[in-house]
């Protein structure tokens, strides 16, 4: 027998998780779309955002500062990583790119483990958002509700940057054809560096705002990365709307399945991915021939 109260609150949880996955996946997908590099260290960026934010919170006691510090730190890590390592891999095979980003992810995770240990760290939500909000038909944790708004705002900001700004136009042009953008006299490498930074920052931002919900640990990014892959396979690589659609679908599947049996959450996610691969191999919002 389905408990409808639980069901609705799980649907809300799914929405929150889905929005979060959408944000992280957008970061991964604009990096892949523009640079052609699948960043296997993306989960580590999520984790780094959480830890940088936690550090800032520990010193300042302010959640806002934690969010800003976490995001900026990951932006910096992203830019430096692109400049020092990734840039030398554009002309190398996809496999080498996967290997090096995979290795970087391990280096990031193990560095954090070395300094902070394996035990998880908690960041409490900001004081005004502590507690439970009555929604009429149910009670829901205030911070999670706020999280939905925060992520929606972040996605909107990303949308505005991508679709309503000059740099966004260049990025979208770069997704279609980066060689052409280069030959138009735009310094594509500068754009690449920025895109990698922004993409990483999307994950880092998600990492710190999610910290009050799920406490952070060095390997927290691993599971997130896998879910992000499913989101992208479902939605289509390189597509911002695809990442959002895929994220929401994946979030709902995980949450609703967990209500019945958490052990099957991944199985259902996998079933959904397989269905998409069989029916629409290029993703729900994908087009044939663009990869």
């Amino acid at each position, binding site marked *: 027998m389905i408990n409808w109260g639980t069901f609705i609150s799980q649907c809300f949880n799914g929405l929150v998780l889905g929005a979060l996955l959408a944000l992280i996946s957008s970061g991964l997908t604009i990096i892949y779309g523009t640079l052609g590099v699948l960043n296997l260290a993306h989960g580590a960026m999520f984790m780094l955002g959480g830890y940088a934010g936690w550090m800032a919170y520990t010193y300042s006691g302010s959640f806002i500062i934690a969010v800003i510090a976490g995001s900026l730190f990951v932006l910096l890590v992203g830019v430096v990583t692109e400049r020092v390592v990734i840039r030398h891999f554009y002309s190398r095979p996809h*496999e080498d790119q996967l290997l090096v980003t995979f290795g970087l992810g391990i280096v990031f995770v193990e560095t954090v483990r070395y300094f902070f240990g394996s035990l998880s760290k908690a960041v409490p939500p900001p004081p005004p958002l502590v507690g439970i909000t009555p929604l009429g038909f149910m009670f829901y944790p205030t911070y999670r509700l706020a999280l939905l708004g925060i992520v929606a705002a972040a996605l909107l900001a990303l949308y505005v940057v991508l679709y309503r700004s000059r740099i966004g136009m260049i990025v979208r042009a770069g997704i279609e054809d980066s060689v052409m953008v280069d030959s138009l006299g735009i310094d594509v490498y500068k754009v690449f560096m920025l895109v990698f930074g922004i993409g990483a920052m999307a994950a880092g931002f998600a990492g710190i705002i999610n910290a009050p919900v799920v406490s952070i640990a060095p390997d927290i990014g691993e599971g997130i990365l896998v879910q992000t892959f499913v989101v992208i396979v479902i939605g289509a690589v390189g597509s911002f709307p695809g990442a959002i659609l895929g994220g929401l679908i994946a979030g709902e599947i995980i949450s609703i399945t967990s209500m019945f049996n958490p052990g099957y959450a991944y199985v259902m996610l996998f079933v959904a991915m397989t269905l998409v691969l*069989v029916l629409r191999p290029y993703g729900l919002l994908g087009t044939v021939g663009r*990869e």
Partner: protein
Amino acid sequence: MLKQRPFLVEALTAIGLVVTPFILPYLGFAPTTINRILIWGLFGIGFDILFGYTGLLSFGQSAFFGTGGMVAAYLLTQVNFPNVWLALFIGLVVAAAVGFLVGLIALRRTGIYFAMITVAIAEVFFFVEFNPLSAYTGGENGLPGVPTPTLNLGFKTIQFNTDWSLYVFFAFWFFVGIVIALRIVRSPVGAILSAIRDNPLRASAVGHNIHGYKLTAFVIAAAYAGFAGGLLGVMQGFMPPDAFMFDTSGQLVMQTAMGGAGNLFGPLVGAAVWLYLNDFLQQTLHLGAAWKLVLGVVFVLLVCFLRHGLIGGFADLYKLAMQHSAPKAEPHEAAPIPGMTAEEEQKAAEIALAKMPAAPPMPPPHRKGDDYSGPILQATSLTKRYGGLVANSDIDFSVQPGERRGIIGPNGAGKTTFFKMLTCEIHPTSGQIVFEGRDITGMDVTDVCQLGLTKSYQVNQLFTRLTVRENLTISALAELRGKFRLDMFRLPHNIHGLDQQVERTLALVDLTGRADVPVSELAYGEKRRLEVGLALASSPSLLLLDEPLAGMSPRERVEMVKLLKSISQGRTMIIIDHDMDSLFELVERVTVLQEGRVLVEGSPNEIKGNKTVQDAYLGGVVAA
């Protein structure tokens, strides 16, 4: 080298495995570490066939490692299955079967998608093992009490229950694993796997069912993984659930990349380095949890600076040393002679070529459709639209057997699109294509090639890491073996007619002297001839050539025209080119395309004098 000493690698492996227990312990390797290295090495052999040979980077091998191990351990601990050897084998079979099913899904996409899908699928296995199936797998506790194997010789029963006796057991299986793998990579299947890695598009265009071969490689990798997983349980006396973890897949990928992919021994070397460092950093340097950080940094540096891993690095060093002792052979391409105009050079080349003995023509192709009479190719109202853009519209086109047809037209006339539709690389929006009386509209490029219709590409599509001979072998194999066949233990020389066909094609495209040179070291003209040779080696009855003369020097053009003339005997050819003098000399009829339509068709002389053709090319300026 391998041909002269066919069992050299096998023999060296055997010797290495025998002397290992007498050497490695003195270098600080514990016996359990050595056993672990063998298990990871065996696990990696299958992975290397998938990644190093076929070019498919999977991050999900833990699924099969865990499955094989769990099945074997379950049989031995929960249902009191008596025979360890048989249980291991059943684990292998189940892992291979699971690999087949997973491969069907994961191989729907390539490249990064494939990597992402394998990660996701492996994660599912991990959760299924932990939760829904925990009654069978022990969940997070794993399955303890896995027995060690015994061998009953009749008069004596051998127990493999100590570290060193287990070493004998594992070394035996590693040896069996490497012998089988060497056999596979030297078989026609192995050759095709390398071709798929280098250029999947061309591998399918010369007539191989690449999806079938990729699935084969995937299943082989899963089988090796499953067996190695079973051995892990035997070694530890316990099947750990973390065999299913992403870390397992990651470790395998890292070890393979560190050792070097594509030579079967890379994973073993990588595992040795990895596990030795693991012991050394933790036990000697007391780094604790930081050992993985150090290994991560080592790995990133290796990927950055040593592209082909440790083995590749040593091989490069060896080559460098050899180059100093032996001067490199010069390509026999003649340099342009200074002080000669292009025209003079062309004449000189023609004279020089006339003196050369003509290569023997290929025998006429033999195929089922030989009793068919009528046009060899007939296209009816062929149209291709890309959204609003019409690339080809309403083309009617017919070619008689034995004819040499040229297609010309200004850039953007739709010539290449037309060719792609004829070879079924793309499908027409509407219209019909009939080849030797059979409707081929909507078939795929592999099947069409198997029927005897193939193309040489405008931009070279070669198997760049293979030699000239290997390239032609790939193409000839498609004709001699069909599009899919699992002769994994056959040696290519034993295929009837293969060597002759490759030699003949080599002679025909004048590359006999360069047969064992890798494609990457060829001059442009040689690559261009090999491109035609690839199409030719599958003995097509209809050969399409997309700008065979593009980008060639005058001398190379003369050679190519001569080559095309010699191969045209008994064969139907359609040639696109912009070099009209050469083309008109080669062909009997010419079709002119303009803006996606047939403008006019006729003999070369008619076309030369045709006013509309002149207008099309010169924009009507001359006429005005």
